């Protein structure tokens, strides 16, 4: 595995993998019977790009490695746990946004986000989150006249009155 313990090689491996998968799915692009024989179809550009990308990343992958810090050493000193938790939090925000609505989802997102990054003063987290939600709600819905979903939960609890 030492072969890929290099930033350039690992990056190029990722690009090569993506390009091969992309190339595979080019052949699933449907072609209209009337355009099949044309010089330029829906597959032409993707095919050209995939071939170029594969050549480019393959060439770099086989080039002599540069003297770089090892990926394992570089990645070892990073705060993966916080980033992982924040990523899960963002995914949860996107999944539950329609159910909870803008106000509740955002309030929870910010409060939990502050806590993940080590903000222990609960009153501060709650007041910043609450203040920001209120401020944005007023600006977006009242000043800019944008629609913000109140969420299924609010509709279940309060009906369409909100």
């Amino acid at each position, binding site marked *: 595995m030492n072969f890929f313990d290099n930033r350039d090689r690992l990056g190029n491996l*990722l690009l090569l993998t993506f390009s091969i998968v992309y190339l595979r799915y080019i052949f699933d*692009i449907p072609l209209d019977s009337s355009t099949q024989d044309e010089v330029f179809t*829906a597959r032409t550009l*993707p095919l050209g*790009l995939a071939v170029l990308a594969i050549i*480019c990343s393959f060439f770099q992958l086989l080039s002599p490695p540069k003297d770089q810090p090892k990926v394992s050493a570089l990645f070892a000193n990073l705060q993966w746990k916080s980033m992982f938790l924040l990523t899960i939090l963002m995914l949860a925000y*996107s999944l539950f946004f329609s159910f909870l609505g803008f106000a509740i989802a955002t309030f929870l997102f910010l409060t939990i986000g502050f806590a993940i990054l080590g903000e222990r003063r609960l009153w501060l987290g709650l007041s910043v989150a609450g203040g*920001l939600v209120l401020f944005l709600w007023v600006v977006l819905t009242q000043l800019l006249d944008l629609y913000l979903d109140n969420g299924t939960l609010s509709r279940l609890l309060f009906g369409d009155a909100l």
Partner: protein
Amino acid sequence: MIEGILAGLYTAFTPTNLMMVFIGCFAGTFIGMLPGLGPVSAIALMIPITYGFDPASGMILMAGVYYGAVFGGSTSAILINAPGVSGAVATAFDGYPMAQRGQAGKALATAAYSSFAGGTVGAVLLLLAVPILADVSLSFQSSDYFALMLFGCTAIAAFSGKGQVLKAISMTLLGLMLATLGEDPSGMQRFTFGVPDLYDGISFLLLSMATFAMAEALLMVLRGDSKKSQQTSDDLSVDKLGSMKLTKEEVKDIAPVVGRSSIVGFFVGILPGAGATIASFLSYGLERNMAPRDKQRDFGKGSIRGLAAPETSNNAASTGSFVPLLTLGIPGSATTAVMLGALLSYGVQPGPRLYIDHPTVFWSVIISMYVGNMILLVLNLPLIPYISKLLDIPRKILVPIILFLSLIGVYLVSFNTVDLTMMVIFGVVAVVFRLLDFPLAPLLLGFILGGMMEDNLRRALLIWDDSWAFLWQRPITATIVSLSLLTIAVPAVSSLLQKRRARVTGKVIDVTSE
């Protein structure tokens, strides 16, 4: 043209638009000060807010944000040696030493005056160059546009850092590949896997927010910056800034530097892919070489010339980068790529017809750039000690807010939560590529140019009866394609030659040591 300028002046000076420039400069300065968040993130964050605006006001706000962010980047470079944007790295070389010896106020004033001068010269050159170039480009055909977009893609790769050329090409290709997702111009579904949310492809806003604003915030978390306290309060107190006045001798000293750097910056800025960073380093190097020997020694130790050169140049380059965008509809940098996306979303097609079809948008944006420079000088400079207090917000509070603003920014445009999920995935992938030192600006540029490139290529083939001969038979196309090949070939060949020379030298040393 005069009518257009007058209409632009009228639009730019309406109270609403003046307010837009002011808000833009103010918000841009604040965002640009935050290390990692540059003009691209600042503009991307503004796009959802400007969706309901008319195109002129939206673009004016964004132009203000752009200048504000560049200025903010320089401010943090001078005060805390943390350039907010790469274009301000050279500013820190002499700006920070000046601040350390108690001349922070003078350094900030020099940066502001130099930026203003660079912006002014840039705006005048833009005013002169754009109509001429736009007239010339009216004779361009689809094949020429295809070639120009190819040139844009190769140029950004060629101007990326040493050893980054191939990586930048790979990332441009990745951007071009991502642009093919969704319905193609003939109505065929590509890579949608039957998922209706993918039929329209990926939105540029989603990708730019994920790769810049969100990725930067996540990188702050990964590197542990979110747990560090800010170092601004002590450094930025009003008392510690010192005088903001320049002496007559200092003004005389920097005047020729500012003149030269403005012109260098503007022309470097025009080149697709070059931008403010290269312009600032080029001017810094040029001025160091041209300075008298006694002044040369001061470079890197707090030289006022060393500060004025990159500051003038990066602002002039920012203005210059609007030339390809406004005349050809081709963005030369990630920032102008985001602006191009914004213009398209307003239903405005940038290019040679912009100043004929939408003269108000065209001229008001150019005039607002100048107004933006004035606002930065007159209002932002005195406010710096106070604006910088906002940076006392701890990162552990700031990071979740940036993440939230990125997410809600994308949601407010599409009202589709699937976009948010996609954005998180792209954000994480962008973080991985950033950690592996792969540049993301070429990805965004490739993505933005991809759709237009394919459209123009199809049209060119249609005009030329399915023949690729336009690539060598049409002079303009052939010239631009040759230039594109040269921009890629020259750095690659010179790098190979350097390696060979190093190998030969190594062998000679080996032989002599034996």
